[in-house]
């Protein structure tokens, strides 16, 4: 509870800091609106040429775009401000020392200590897109679908946090690598259902960089329902990824020797 109070405080301070950059805030808001409009326009253009995209109808793909927008909001609001260029800005200059001395779990502070509140605007916008898509696709979803979606969504958030922290933790072993640029690149693949990609890429996006688990599966649960295996495997994958991340983070900390490490 104490840790969450500290993180809430960080959120408030971050909001105050962001408000100092008012013109940037305006451009970010316009950019976000145009980005969503661009995503919707791209979908409209694709579906003006075909009725079904690799088995996905327009409304179903809209739900995927909605979930992608929500998760992008979470990623950009909480994880990117803390973990972007983690090696160069935190590990190499020894700034992690400061975090390690604070009486809060260091992995939480390192990954969620500050935030970009403006990015959270994508969460309600993405949710609205997902709701509109779902209603168009199947009407109001039943309780079972909603529950499956919520379970997979929660698992998706856990996997999102884990994979991003895991990637940042590579800084303890390879401080000159900046893998987050690759993460950002592959993250964009989640904008569409993974069924459109070649099988090898789809497998990569399910098991290695699980964009499918984070975005496509919750959307699929809402529009088509999820089989029991996925509903059980999703949370297990979420818990497993968190456990692995904590172990790797601790192992990384044992290697950390402050500045120049």
């Amino acid at each position, binding site marked *: 509870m104490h840790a969450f109070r500290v993180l809430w405080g960080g959120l408030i301070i971050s909001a105050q800091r962001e408000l100092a950059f008012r013109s*940037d805030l305006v*451009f970010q808001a316009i950019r976000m609106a145009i980005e969503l409009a661009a995503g919707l326009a791209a979908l409209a253009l694709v579906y003006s040429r075909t009725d079904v995209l690799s088995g996905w109808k327009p409304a179903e793909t809209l739900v995927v775009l909605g979930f992608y927008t929500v998760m992008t909001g979470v990623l950009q609001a909480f994880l990117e401000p803390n973990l972007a260029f983690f090696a160069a800005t935190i590990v190499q200059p020894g700034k992690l020392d400061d975090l390690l001395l604070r009486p809060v779990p260091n992995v939480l502070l390192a990954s969620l200590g500050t935030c970009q509140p403006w990015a959270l605007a994508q969460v309600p916008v993405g949710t609205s897109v997902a709701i509109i898509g779902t209603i168009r696709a199947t009407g109001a979803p039943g309780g079972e679908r909603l529950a499956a979606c919520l379970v997979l969504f929660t698992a998706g958030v856990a996997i999102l946090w884990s994979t991003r922290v895991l990637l940042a933790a590579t800084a303890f072993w390879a401080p000159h690598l*900046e893998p987050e640029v*690759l993460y950002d*690149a592959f993250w964009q693949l989640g904008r569409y259902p993974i069924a459109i*990609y070649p099988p090898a890429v789809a497998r990569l996006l399910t098991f290695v960089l699980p964009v499918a688990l984070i975005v496509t599966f919750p959307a699929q649960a809402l529009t088509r329902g999820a089989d029991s295996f996925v509903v059980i495997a999703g949370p297990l994958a979420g818990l497993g990824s968190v456990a692995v991340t904590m172990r790797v983070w601790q192992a990384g900390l044992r290697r950390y020797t402050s500045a120049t490490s």
Partner: protein
Amino acid sequence: MIRSLRLVAGYAERSFLAWMAGRDFLVTLVVNQSITPLIGLAVWSAALPGQTSITTYFLALLVVRLMTVSYEHHTLANHIYTGDLADDLLRPHPLILGWIGDNLAIRLWHAIFALPLVVATAALIGMDVRPAYIGATVPAILFAAILRFLFTYTLALSAFWTERAQGVVGLGGVLTFLLGGEAAPVPLLPATIRPWIAALPFRAMLGFPAELASGSLGREQALAGYGWQLFWTVVLAGLTMLVWRRGMQRYVAVGS
């Protein structure tokens, strides 16, 4: 002119050698730049299966994107914010020459790392490459490279007025994605808006060279496209000079 070219070559060589130390990072940049056209390729191949012109278009778009890449919002904007620009201004030549040299160096590195990716993708999808189309495309890529540099450079100059130029440049990037032929090839847009989109600078920066490479343009359309490229090059060059002069009047070194 010769002196300017020598200076650009010198800056390009220096920057090229400096980037050698960051080869790992360059690979990640190349992958990052390649993803959007490859997603377009996957989506449009699924939407219009069997159309080779679509696959050729998106692969050409990948090449154009990599050959016209510009990062001045990270480099120039940071120089303005940190006050490093004050040092640059003491140099006895137009400042833009240094940034052109840096830009050419990073594009060369992108070309070196992207070549295997492009060849592999072309082989994988069985791309239809015709020398005549390639010949017509090269000048368009050169124009696109100039245009995209001027566009990013001008947007990066917003650092004179804003606290962070990333937002402005990001906005430009989204518009380029939507209207430049990345979200959808301009010839596939609805006929009512197509002429308007074709006349904007975004298509001249990305989509037009790719359309030429895929052979989807007739002679008149190609000439019109080159006309728009020339027009936007003149407009953006003038705009760049204007914004630079206004920015200089405002700039008072670090802490400004």
